[in-house]
């Protein structure tokens, strides 16, 4: 495609933008159409966490990092909702399109691979942010409003949802059946999230567990997000942001490579 002159190139770019827009609209329409499956369950789960951990048990735990337990877990719970949903959206949408072969609609069309990837990732980010917004609104019922650094909060939530959308995409590309798309979330993602410092500060852990936590990428995301909202973090914020950016770049490149090699898509 490099042989095109400037004018044609410009025209192609507008075609490509329309294709991107089309994928995003399709993805958003999908999760809104099945909102009972996509938006309601995370909201109920989050509300239960707030009531049980934050309100009932939390009141007996006392302060953590200088904040009430409820205030301490709010950022982690919001982050958990965002990354879970970003991941779930891409993995289920891409895999079901692959499974029923409607992904061929995209593969036969002149849509560049990076646009396919960006489209699905944007869909995942949209659902992640949508659920994150609802979770934040619910949190207002239980806890006061805090915002230490809106810039860091926004960057972390955006990159976090991009990373997990990419994770969902990679999972979907390798998946051969519906079991494969639930194994990773259940056996890898959930333990990483629960051990990633959503419910506690690593200071409360024994030294070995604290050391192991440092290999968990979600630990850095939760802490960076908590820093953005409350201004407290178990790790250096620079390190967290650096790692998050690195993870985004590496996973994007890897996903794109999967698309170019046609893994699981083109025979």
């Amino acid at each position, binding site marked *: 495609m490099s042989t095109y002159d400037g004018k044609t190139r410009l025209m192609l770019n507008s075609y490509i933008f*329309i294709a991107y827009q*089309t994928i995003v609209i399709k993805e958003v329409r999908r999760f809104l159409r099945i909102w009972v499956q996509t938006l309601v369950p995370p909201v109920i789960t989050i509300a239960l966490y707030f009531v049980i951990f934050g309100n009932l048990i939390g009141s007996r735990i006392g302060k953590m990092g200088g904040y009430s337990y409820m205030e301490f877990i709010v950022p982690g719970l919001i982050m958990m909702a965002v990354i879970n949903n970003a991941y779930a959206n891409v993995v289920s949408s891409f895999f079901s399109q692959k499974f029923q072969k409607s992904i061929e609609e995209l593969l036969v069309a002149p849509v560049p691979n990076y646009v396919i990837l960006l489209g699905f990732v944007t869909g995942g980010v949209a659902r992640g942010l949508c659920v994150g917004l609802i979770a934040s609104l619910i949190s207002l019922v239980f806890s006061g409003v805090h915002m230490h650094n809106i810039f860091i909060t926004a960057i972390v939530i955006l990159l976090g949802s991009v990373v997990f959308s990419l994770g969902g995409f990679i999972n979907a590309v390798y998946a051969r059946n519906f079991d494969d798309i639930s194994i990773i979330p259940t056996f890898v993602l959930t333990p990483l999230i629960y051990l990633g410092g959503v419910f506690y500060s690593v200071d409360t852990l024994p030294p070995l567990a604290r050391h192991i936590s440092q290999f968990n990428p979600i630990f850095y995301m939760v802490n960076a997000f908590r820093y953005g909202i409350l201004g407290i973090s178990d790790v250096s914020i620079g390190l967290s942001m650096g790692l998050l950016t690195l993870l985004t770049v590496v996973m994007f490149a890897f996903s794109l490579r999967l698309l170019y090699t046609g893994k699981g898509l083109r025979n």
Partner: protein
Amino acid sequence: MSTRPGQGVAGAPWQGHWKGSECCLFFCYACRLLSTAVLQSMTPAISIRNLYKTYANGFKALNGISLDVQQGDFFALLGANGAGKSTTIGVIATLVKKTAGTVEVFGQNVETHVYDTKLNLGVVPQEINFSLFEKVMDIVVTQGGYYGLPIKVAKERAEKYLRQLGLWEKHNQQARVLSGGMKRRLLIARALVHEPKLLILDEPTAGVDIELRRSTWEFLEEINKAGTTIILTTHYLEEAENLCRNIAMIDKGEIVVNTSMKQLLQTLNKELFVLDTYNHMTTAPLLNGFEVKLLDETSLEVALDKGQNLNEVFQLLSDNRISVKSMRNKSNRLEQLFVSLLHRPIDTSAAGAVK
């Protein structure tokens, strides 16, 4: 062409005087334009050279296929299950990665000119491959979006093709409520939304009832007349015989026949007729020089070689005091050829479908 004295601006030959060299230049330019136009129209819609495909499990689906389909053609690609038809289409549509060879669409390589070749190509797959939970209209409009059509244009085109294919009444319903035949027509509407110059249909009428099949044929004939090149794979040989002008037969990944339908049918040297008679017979009558078979007590099958005369058959039947009530051509001629060329047994009970 320079500005000449006394003539404001140099114009075409009919505007003022031209030097001989200018006329010569103009003539060359016109010739070049004309030859480019002629060459472009002569470029095949599809040109496949030495195409090989071996799947990961070692199955050799294509063994060096070479094939040209000219612009404006209505072309049949025939073959039994697993012969390599869908693999060939898959390679053209970039859904299957070739092992070796080249594929050109309107003179452009599908690998190096991805954008142009894909814009010129519409594919109707063998299996239903849209989301059943999406609305009919959304499926077509979304596909238009993938080809870069602005939403307004995509909607107009979707309405046009859904109406033409008799699906407009269902445009606001989910695709799962459509009947099997309607789902197949939706695949056609979707493939046409970007108005490709070449449409490839992989068994578009499999499992579709006769009425819908016929209206699909009429629609395809119309768009072919309007200039769209069509390549069709089918199991219904009657379909190929009725619609297509040229034909290729593929067997075990190789092209075994590639000719015009007319020429192919001319090579058929035997034609079978079924005669229903008023008489009740227990054995087939002996008709000198003709092969006769008793199908049941009132019907006969007569084989006619090239050059033999049907009048003779009737004469001989009259001599045997057998009167004929009605007569029909047995099954499909192409089917006989197909079997003889590919040496495969067939089941003629299913309306000419090769199993």
